[in-house]
Structure formats: structure tokens, C-alpha cells
């Protein structure tokens, strides 16, 4: 193996490298700001103020973060099994459909406290089902999961357009969306929750889904590192043929991990449909599935890393919105550019600085050794 693949201390690999990557993305972003005639310092100030400066902004940041945690975890679980789930977009879309269908069908008959858990389950089931087919095809028919999950993203989009235009739409509205759910099934938003305890905070779309995201993180952490299924999953991911000798059946592991991955991605639907929009609509999921790939990569597929990376993406989303709002020559597309740069430098060019850092590290170590020898 070449030098660049040998060991580096943990802090270099998990902290310094991602930091350098993010800095590179920021430098390029500053370059783009300069080209289009925006003062990068002012833009940075607006971005940070928008994300952290006031209650509503923080709420939005954490609300976006919730979605990124779900899709990041989804990609990470599949990654541990050696699979690339690029279908988070479609699974999130279908998750929303699952949650929405439950609400449309049951909300009138059952009390909200009963419907909400069923709807969350519905989101998980629909997301998992949409991941199950590509997983089955990969496990038992040998088709490539990257391609099938891409195809399933488009299939999800077609299916949703069909349903929202022809079947589930509210005839009294012009746009393709369903009727608004009765408010008994709305997930409590954070400002309502705080108000119950007598604390006033600014209203924002942030809702209790964020607790669900944190729970999911804990679940993934325990599942991957402290259960036999997680062990099987990691074994299959690192060496499938060794796993077979150990009595593990990779096809079953593939299906299991993809279903969990799909269910996690489907949780985006809970945050968006149950927590914020309170009705079924089109395109509530756009971009979260793809961003999840970057979140998982940056977070080194560990829940703690994923939460931090998701926070960064939340900041970029909310701060970028604020930027588009404050500056006339910037639109919300700037968020897309920032996400793209982060995915490029933290994902695709993840190891750009590695050989260079490695050389630096070995040189410093060599020096230390040399000093020890002489003294």
C-alpha cells in the first residue's frame, strides 16, 4: 500500500483534515463572492447572524439540521455495510407520503396522540419500502445499488406528481397539495412546547422532530457498535467474503441495513409533513438526500460527527436564506452553491491534503525520533 494510506493520529484524520477541507470550500466561496461583486466579510456576517443571531434564526438552523441528521444517519448506516445509498431523496419523499397518508386516513377517526406514532411509523415504513426494492435487487439479483437508487429517486418523483395532481389533491386549491391535516396531528413546535413551561421563545418551524433526530442518532450509535446486527453489518462492509466465512449472510445484511437507512431518510417526512407543512405537497424534500452524503462523509459516519456536520449544513441553509433575503443580487441558489462546494471538498476531494499532511506528520515524527536517538 502507498504511504498515503498508512496510519495518521486520530485528531489529524478526524479533525484537522475536515477542517482544512471546509476552509478550502470557504476560500472558494469567498472567491465566488468577489467575482459576483459581494463583500465576503459582510456576507459572512449576515450568514452567521442569520443562523445564530436571533431566536427565530436559531430555530430555523436547528430545523434544517434535523433533516440533515436524518439523511446523514441514513447514508452512514448503509455506508457501514459497504453500500452507497444515494436514494435518500426518494426515500425521504416517500417517507413524507407515508406520514401524510396516515394523517389523511386516520386523523378524523382517532385522537392525535395515537395518530402521530402511527404516522411516524408510516414514514419509516414507506422510506424503508422504497429502499427495500433496490436492496433486494442488489442482494439477490446483483444489480448495482447506486444506479437503482438513482432510478428510484426519479420514480418517487413521478409517483408523487401523479398522486398529488390526480389523487390526493385538494380540489379547492389551485396548487397540487392535499387538504390541511386537523391540528390534533401537528407535531408540537418548539415555541409551543416552551410556552407550556412558561418560557417565551420566538416561533420557528423547529419542532419535536429534533428530539426524534437525537434519538435516532443514539439508536444508530448503539445499533452499529453494540449489537450483533451492527457487528454483522460492519463485518460485511469491511470484508464481505470474510463475513461469509464467519457465518454471516451478506444478502440479509444488505436488505436490513438498507431498510434501516430508508426508514431514517423517511423521517425527513416526519419533520416536514407532520412538523411544518401539515399537508402533503410536492418537493418538500429536495436536496436533503444528496446533502446527507456529504454530512455522513464529513461526520466520518459516526453519529456525533453527523450531528456536527448537520449543524454546519443547517447554518449554511439558514444563513444562506438570510443572505438571499438581505442582498438583492443574491438568490437562494447561493445555498446550493455552498452545499455543492462542501460536498466537493469534504466528500469527493476528502483526501486531497492527506498525502501532504502525512508527509508533514512523518517528517515531524522522524525529527522526534532522531532527537531521541541523539540524546
Amino acid at each position, binding site marked *: 500500500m502507498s504511504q498515503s494510506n498508512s496510519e495518521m493520529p486520530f485528531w489529524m484524520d478526524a479533525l484537522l483534515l475536515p477542517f482544512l477541507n471546509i476552509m478550502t470550500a470557504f476560500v472558494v466561496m469567498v472567491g465566488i463572492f468577489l467575482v459576483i461583486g459581494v463583500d465576503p466579510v459582510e456576507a459572512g456576517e449576515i450568514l452567521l447572524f442569520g443562523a445564530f443571531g436571533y431566536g427565530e434564526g436559531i430555530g430555523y438552523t436547528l430545523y434544517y439540521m434535523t433533516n440533515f441528521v436524518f439523511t446523514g444517519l441514513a447514508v452512514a448506516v448503509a455506508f457501514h455495510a459497504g453500500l452507497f445509498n444515494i436514494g435518500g431523496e426518494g426515500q425521504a419523499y416517500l417517507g413524507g407520503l407515508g406520514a401524510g397518508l396516515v394523517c389523511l386516513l386516520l386523523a378524523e377517526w382517532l385522537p392525535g396522540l395515537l395518530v402521530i406514532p402511527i404516522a411516524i411509523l408510516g414514514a419509516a415504513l414507506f422510506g424503508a419500502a422504497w429502499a427495500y426494492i433496490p436492496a433486494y435487487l442488489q442482494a439477490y439479483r446483483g444489480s448495482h445499488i447506486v444506479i437503482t437508487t438513482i432510478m428510484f429517486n426519479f420514480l418517487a418523483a413521478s409517483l408523487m406528481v401523479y398522486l398529488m395532481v390526480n389523487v390526493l389533491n385538494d380540489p379547492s386549491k389551485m396548487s397540487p397539495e392535499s387538504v390541511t391535516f386537523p391540528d390534533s396531528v401537528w407535531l408540537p413546535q418548539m415555541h409551543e412546547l416552551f410556552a407550556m413551561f412558561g418560557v417565551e421563545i420566538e416561533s420557528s418551524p423547529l419542532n419535536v422532530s429534533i428530539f426524534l433526530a437525537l434519538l435516532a442518532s443514539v439508536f444508530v450509535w448503539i445499533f452499529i457498535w453494540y449489537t450483533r446486527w451492527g457487528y454483522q453489518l460492519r463485518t460485511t462492509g469491511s470484508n464481505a467474503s470474510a463475513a461469509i466465512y464467519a457465518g454471516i449472510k451478506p444478502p440479509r445484511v444488505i436488505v436490513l441495513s438498507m431498510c434501516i437507512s430508508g426508514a431514517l431518510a423517511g423521517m425527513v417526512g416526519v419533520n416536514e409533513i407532520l412538523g411544518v407543512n401539515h399537508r402533503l405537497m410536492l418537493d418538500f424534500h429536495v436536496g436533503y438526500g444528496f446533502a446527507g452524503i456529504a454530512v455522513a462523509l464529513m461526520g466520518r459516519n459516526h453519529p456525533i460527527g453527523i450531528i456536527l456536520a448537520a449543524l454546519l449544513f443547517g447554518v449554511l441553509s439558514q444563513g444562506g436564506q438570510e443572505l438571499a433575503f438581505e442582498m438583492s443580487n443574491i438568490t437562494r441558489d447561493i445555498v446550493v452553491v455552498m452545499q455543492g462546494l462542501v460536498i466537493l471538498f469534504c466528500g469527493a476531494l476528502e*483526501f486531497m491534503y492527506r498525502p501532504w499532511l502525512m508527509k508533514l506528520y512523518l517528517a515531524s515524527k522522524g525529527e522526534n525520533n532522531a532527537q531521541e536517538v541523539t540524546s
Partner: protein
Amino acid sequence: MTDWFEVILLTFDATLRVSAPLVLAALAGLFSERAGVVDIGLEGKMLAGAFMAAAVASLTGSAWLGLVAAIGVSILLALLHGFACITHRGNQVVSGVAINILASGLTMVIGLYLFNQGGQTPSLINDARFLSIELPGVELLSGIPYLGTIYKELISGHNALVYVAFAMVPVTYWVIYKTRFGLRLRAVGENPNAVDTAGISVSRQRYLAVICCGVLCGVAGAYISTAHNAQFVRDMTAGQGFIALAALIFGKWRPVSVMMACLLFGFLDALAVRLQGVVLPVIGEVPVQLIEALPYILTVILLAGFIGRAVAPKASGIPYVKER
């Protein structure tokens, strides 16, 4: 009778026009994937190409300059993909995703900066577009029933890039199967170790392949904004890069089969437009979304091994590491 003849003819005519960018993009993917570099960034490269073509064409008034600019920006993105996947052995899928997202965002940001029309380019007129060309002999053959009409409607009367697209099929076939370059290109996609042992640089060969990919994606993008339409609008490639990817797999990475797959998917698209709101006997109204989704469904079924087998080049998606 003649009515039906005309409807069918017009549908086929539309099929050719819709298929042309698919053919170009799918052949682009063929160059890249045959050399072992998976490219899901076809969409992004096309989109960037479409933007540059429309932007340069509207600034200079020349469609050909637009085409050159489109090819240029597409090659740059292809080289970025190469830099990430070949030089730094990054994940090829992630790199493709990054290029798609970057293209989607940057085209709008730069478009807004340049033209101040919400990210669109101004509408293109006359020389800033590729207009239809009348092939010689249309008058001569117009007397012959059916054949004359077929020649006039179907063969003649397209813009230059349609002919370029379909001419690229035999060219690609020749390059891939009949030249030394093509042999080496296929070899780095199947067994890079052997190529390396023979003293040929795997990296160099793969870089050349992604440059070919960039050129064709650029042409496809220019076609979409300056030939098929007359301006650039938000995300105007609308998933055609992914349909091309599906066609590439459906055609099992072989030029002629890939073209056939593109024609099939293009035909479905043309059919979907034609069947919008039409109530057929027996079946009733066919949901347009179903026809639009058919390319993806067919590809999934093919990949599942139900219609033949699609076997990817052996080394595709795997970065080459020189063993020490």
C-alpha cells in the same frame, strides 16, 4: 390513413429531436465508464454547458462560439471530476453528485450576475441559435409519395447538432473498437493492472477519457439551450443526464445499442407529450407520469437481470492504486 401516417411521422420526428441530447450525453458517459470512471455528473456537465452556450451566444451573437464555450466549461468540470477521482482517488459517485449540485447552483448565481433576469439568459434570436437545415434534394424527392415526405419531415429539417449527435455514434464505435486509443481506453476500464504493466499510464488514459466525456456533454448542453430551446432557464436539463445514464446501462455500454436505448427513451418522451389528456380505447387515459417514468422502470428491470444482463466494465468505480 394519411392522417395516421403524418401523426406517426411527426412523433418520430420529435423522437429524433428529443433523443439527440440523450445520444450525446450517453456516448459521453460511455467514454468515461468504459475507462472505469463512473460518471453520474453527466447532468451537471450538460447543465453547465447549456448555460455557457446560451450566455456566450447571447453576448456574442454566435451559436458556434456558444458551442465552444459549452464544450470548454464541460471539459473543466470533467477535469475536476478526474482530479477528484483519478488523482485523489475520491469517491466517484460523490464527485458526480457534487458536480451536479454545483452546476445547478452556479448557473443561477452567475446567470443572475451576468444578465439580471432571475438567472435566465435573454432569449436568443437568429444566428445565436442553431436553426434547422434543409438537406439538398428535398424538392427533388417531394414528388415521391411517402418516401418524399419521410425525407422532408424526418431526415431533413433538423439543426446541425442533431446530425452531429447521430454522426457521433459511428465515430464513437470506431474510436472505441478500432483504434489503439479505444483499445487502451477499454483496457483501463477492465483491467488497469495489465495496462500499467504494459507501460501505459492508467491516469493519463482515464484523463483522456473524461475529456472526451466533457466534450460530448458540452455539445449536449449547447443543443438543449441553443438548438432545442432559445434560452437558458433554471435546471433546464431536467434529469436528461440521468435518462442518458439509464440509456447507457440499457444499451449495455455499447455505442449502437446505447443509441437505440436513447431513441426508445426519446420516443417514450415524444409519446408522453402526444398522449397528454388523450383517452385511449380500452385502456382509458394513460397517466403521463407513468410514461415518463418508463425509462427508469425499464432500466431497473434490466439491471435486475430480467431482460438480458447488463455487465458494467469490470474496473468501473474503482480508483486505480499502483501497488508497490
